[in-house]
């Protein structure tokens, strides 16, 4: 049985998937600008493991949809320097589910994290399998229970990113550095993803990361968990629509490691 996501179809994209929009999206065919199979977030773990002889830094910008990034790229020279492709978020497109897919390398039908209330990831993660020193840097709260404890970083009044980026800077000597950056998602929720505030936040991140990482050698990934769509001047996600479901996966290799 095939079904179509209305939001996708309206904007010229059609993703055929097995069954209703529920547990598992297994795309069979995609018609649109890209004309190729989309990467999925659960494929990232295998990619990271396959490059484990190199130093890798993962910049995980929460809430950054594919279109949101594309529309801001002309103002974001650092993010423009990544070789970026469009990928498919998890179903549902929420942080818990997507993060579980990235870390475990399987989709929600296997890891069973399908809502904000489900947080116990009982599978082996990238941190368990990576053959080197790993660090997992989070914002102010744990998102999932994993064997690898996340380094938590309290926000400074309303800004959650300063402390996270400082923590990243002090942990750049690790082999695999996974950094979850929340501030952009917060701004999108509050003002909507198309707002001036959201664009400014992305431009700020672009400049700050460019400064902090100018000397870092190895592979730097730019990823996200889900996008957002506007609703009454706010931003939200969790729907089967293009804005929520399409996310960037970018890679930049700094040579002379």
């Amino acid at each position, binding site marked *: 049985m095939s079904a179509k996501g209305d939001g996708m179809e309206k904007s010229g994209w059609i993703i055929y998937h097995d069954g209703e929009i529920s547990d598992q999206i297994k795309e069979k065919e995609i018609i649109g600008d890209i004309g190729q199979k989309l990467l999925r977030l659960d494929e990232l773990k295998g990619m990271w493991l396959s490059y484990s002889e190199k130093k890798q830094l993962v910049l995980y910008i929460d809430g950054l949809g594919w279109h949101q990034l594309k529309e801001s790229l002309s103002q974001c020279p650092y993010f423009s320097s990544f070789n970026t492709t469009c990928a498919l978020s998890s179903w549902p497109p929420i942080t818990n589910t997507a993060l579980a897919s990235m870390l475990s390398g399987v989709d929600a039908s296997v890891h069973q994290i399908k809502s*904000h209330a489900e947080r116990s990831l009982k599978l082996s993660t990238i941190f368990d399998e990576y053959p080197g020193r790993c660090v997992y840097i989070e914002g102010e*709260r*744990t998102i999932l229970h994993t064997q690898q404890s996340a380094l938590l970083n*309290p*926000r*400074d*009044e309303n800004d959650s990113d300063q402390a996270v980026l400082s923590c990243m800077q002090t942990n750049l000597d690790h082999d695999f550095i996974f950094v979850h950056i929340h501030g952009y998602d917060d701004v999108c*929720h509050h003002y909507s993803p198309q707002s001036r505030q959201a664009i400014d936040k992305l431009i700020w991140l672009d400049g700050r990361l460019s400064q902090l990482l100018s000397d870092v050698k190895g592979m730097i990934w730019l990823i996200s968990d889900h996008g957002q769509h506007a609703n009454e001047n706010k931003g*939200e996600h*969790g729907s089967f629509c293009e804005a929520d479901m399409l996310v960037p996966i970018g890679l930049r290799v700094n040579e002379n490691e």
Partner: protein
Amino acid sequence: MSEFKLPEKQQYSLLKRAQGKAERQIEVYGCELNKYIGDLHEDDQILCVGEDGMQLLLSGREVLLPNHILICETAGDYQIIPLKDHSSSRWLKHLVSIEIRRKGL
């Protein structure tokens, strides 16, 4: 279930907007977290842990802001509520412990 003795408990009206649902007004009863803790410095960190092991790490600077972070109670169940968080993504439910981390201690 842990018990926290809250001073000067009062009612707060909040707007709550759960994912995919319309915004609604709710009433909670509690007090500001800084009043519950008492001796709190700007450089402190406050680690709040939920029954399921989830952790929320707050800065003393944020907790000291007036009318900002609440500790609330309903029928013996406690939660940490940042007042400005309209989507309730920062709420920590079923609170079991609060630990103050102070530099030099």
